[in-house]
């Protein structure tokens, strides 16, 4: 890994947002917003440059301070990392623009929430750091930065219900990260290294490794709200301010999924068993059904969207059983591995765009009506056609109708399911889509229904609606570069093309 070309971009991608966030603390509220918005545009521009660089050079690394591993810290930017960084930048820039206009429009009524900007930039630095990290302890630090910033953002409104939800979220996050750190301690104790690449080579199967895998997976499942540890997500995501809800569900929970994917594929390949994969897949399958059903039963718009996040995260868990070969299958014939894990990446992107758009639309509706009971959607189509369209488009992507990004993700997932012969996951994917269609069409039906009574209706700036609509369109546009993007992902030396040999399975299950 040391032989890869070096670049200073990985360090700047983490350092710049931290620098700007700290700088913005010196300004008063309006100054914070200006500095914050400039900082997020700058960070997004850097992410674009990083994407181009990795597309040209392949994976690049940065050795912090010139201290080479195992003593120093190495940042590694491979195609998988840069795709996540790019997604964060795209979604983040739209949410930043939305936040800029949203807080301006609310300044007179709801006070000022200028602390959003430094917190969001610290969160962004944490996310970039997480995607670039190459050792277990660095991942712990970045996920803690993300967790604390995310909770601080979630309680930004200062309302009672958001405080309750925030404390619940924080306790779950601390529990999750402590469990993760316990696993890291055991791994360090048994191998003496924390470097992901090195661990993948020297980790030996055994009781310690299996136990470490268990507590790490438990911790990350809590962090990414995987069933049955999803209890903290709906209240926390639904009680936050609109741009914050969008950030939390589009980006924050994906961080834990990214670590889980990296660790399962790169580090713990040796200890994975067929049964373990099936178990985590089952958790995902239950989350898909349960979350969609709960979303269908809610009466508040933001709670519907938050429960839908639980279901959509369930799809992400369902890729893990597909990555582990069934007993007796030869790895050489495993042509479903690539569809399975790229389906996960596409599901992450499609959900990020669609769910961010959905939460921003909910924020627009609350701004106009003052509450988010689903009855407030009545007659939305004539009052705010642009927002109705955003909800419709984002909803179609969540359901997985062609030609949306959500369709592409679920189609790849189904392809993986059929090619691997694990057919029992197929009905879950389809049932999840039907239930999603249930609540999306329920919302759209209300949007076209005539209003019952004349509720007060405050006009909402067009700029906000445009941002929500653009994000919804983004969940469709990501399909067009699909072929190139998947080739790009598979070209990674550290991930992707290596996944087949890694997933051959370990000492217990598959031989």
């Amino acid at each position, binding site marked *: 890994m040391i032989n890869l070309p070096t670049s200073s971009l990985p360090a700047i991608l983490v350092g710049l947002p931290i620098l700007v966030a700290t700088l913005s603390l010196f300004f008063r509220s309006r100054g914070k917003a200006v500095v914050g918005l400039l900082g997020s545009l700058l960070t997004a521009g850097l992410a674009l440059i990083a994407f181009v660089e990795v597309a040209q050079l392949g994976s690049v690394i940065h050795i912090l301070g010139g201290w080479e591993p195992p003593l120093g810290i190495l940042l590694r930017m491979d195609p998988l990392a840069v795709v996540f960084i790019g997604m964060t930048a795209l979604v983040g820039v739209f949410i930043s623009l939305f936040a800029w206009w949203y807080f301006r429009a609310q300044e007179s009524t709801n006070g000022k929430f200028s602390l959003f900007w430094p917190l969001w930039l610290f969160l962004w630095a944490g996310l970039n750091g997480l995607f670039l990290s190459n050792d277990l*302890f660095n991942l712990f*630090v970045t996920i803690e930065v993300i967790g*604390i910033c995310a909770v601080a953002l979630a309680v930004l409104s200062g309302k009672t219900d958001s405080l309750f939800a925030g404390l619940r979220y924080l306790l779950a996050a601390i529990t999750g990260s*402590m469990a993760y750190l*316990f696993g890291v301690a055991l791994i*360090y104790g048994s191998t003496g290294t924390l470097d992901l690449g090195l661990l993948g080579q020297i980790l030996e199967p055994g009781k310690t490794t299996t136990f470490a895998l268990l507590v790490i997976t438990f911790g990350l499942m809590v962090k990414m709200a995987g069933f049955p540890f999803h209890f903290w997500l709906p*209240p926390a995501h639904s009680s936050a301010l609109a741009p914050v809800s969008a950030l939390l569900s589009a980006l924050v929970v994906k961080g834990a999924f990214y670590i889980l994917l990296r660790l399962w594929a790169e580090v713990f390949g040796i200890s994975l068993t067929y049964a373990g994969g099936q178990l985590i897949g089952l958790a995902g399958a239950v989350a898909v059904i349960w979350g969609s059903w709960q979303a269908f039963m809610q009466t508040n718009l933001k709670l519907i969207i938050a429960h839908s996040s639980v279901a959509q995260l369930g799809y992400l868990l369902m890729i893990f059983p597909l990555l582990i070969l069934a007993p007796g299958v030869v790895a050489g014939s495993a042509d479903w591995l690539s569809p399975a894990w790229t389906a996960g990446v596409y599901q992450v992107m499609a959900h990020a765009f669609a769910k961010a758009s959905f939460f921003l639309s909910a924020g627009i509706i609350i701004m106009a009506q003052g509450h988010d009971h689903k009855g407030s959607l009545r007659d939305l189509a004539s009052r705010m056609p642009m927002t109705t369209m955003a909800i419709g488009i984002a909803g179609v992507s969540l359901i997985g109708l062609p030609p949306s990004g959500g369709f592409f993700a679920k189609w790849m997932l189904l392809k993986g399911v059929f090619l691997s012969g694990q057919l029992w996951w197929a009905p879950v994917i389809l049932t999840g889509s039907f239930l999603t269609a249930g609540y999306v069409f329920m919302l759209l039906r209300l949007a076209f229904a005539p209003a019952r009574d004349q509720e007060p209706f405050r006009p909402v700036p067009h700029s906000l609606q445009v941002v929500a609509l653009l994000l919804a369109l983004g969940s469709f546009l990501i399909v067009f570069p699909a072929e190139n993007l998947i080739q790009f992902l598979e070209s990674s030396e550290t991930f992707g093309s290596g996944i087949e040999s890694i997933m051959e399975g370990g000492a217990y299950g598959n031989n």
Partner: protein
Amino acid sequence: METYKIYILTSAVLFVIGIGGVFMARHFIKKIIATVIMGGGVFLCFVSFAERDALTFADPVPHAMVITGIVVAVASAAFALALARRIYQLTGEQSFPIDK
């Protein structure tokens, strides 16, 4: 039994006590203390590995990690306490409502 194994077993016990407390305690402060106990267990585990690997002096890497971890854990606990205090000021509640 070597000395470090006593510490590792203690750390596992602390971790389990902590995780049980987070889920079973009702009072906010008890929950927060439970997370601190969990953290204590994890840090003890790290440090005991440093003792095990000691030839002439203890392995410094776990200590560096534990220092970082303690900073993170203190910050999280302080933030949780601040939230709990704010909830108490606003509502007088000291635990989560049962129905949720």
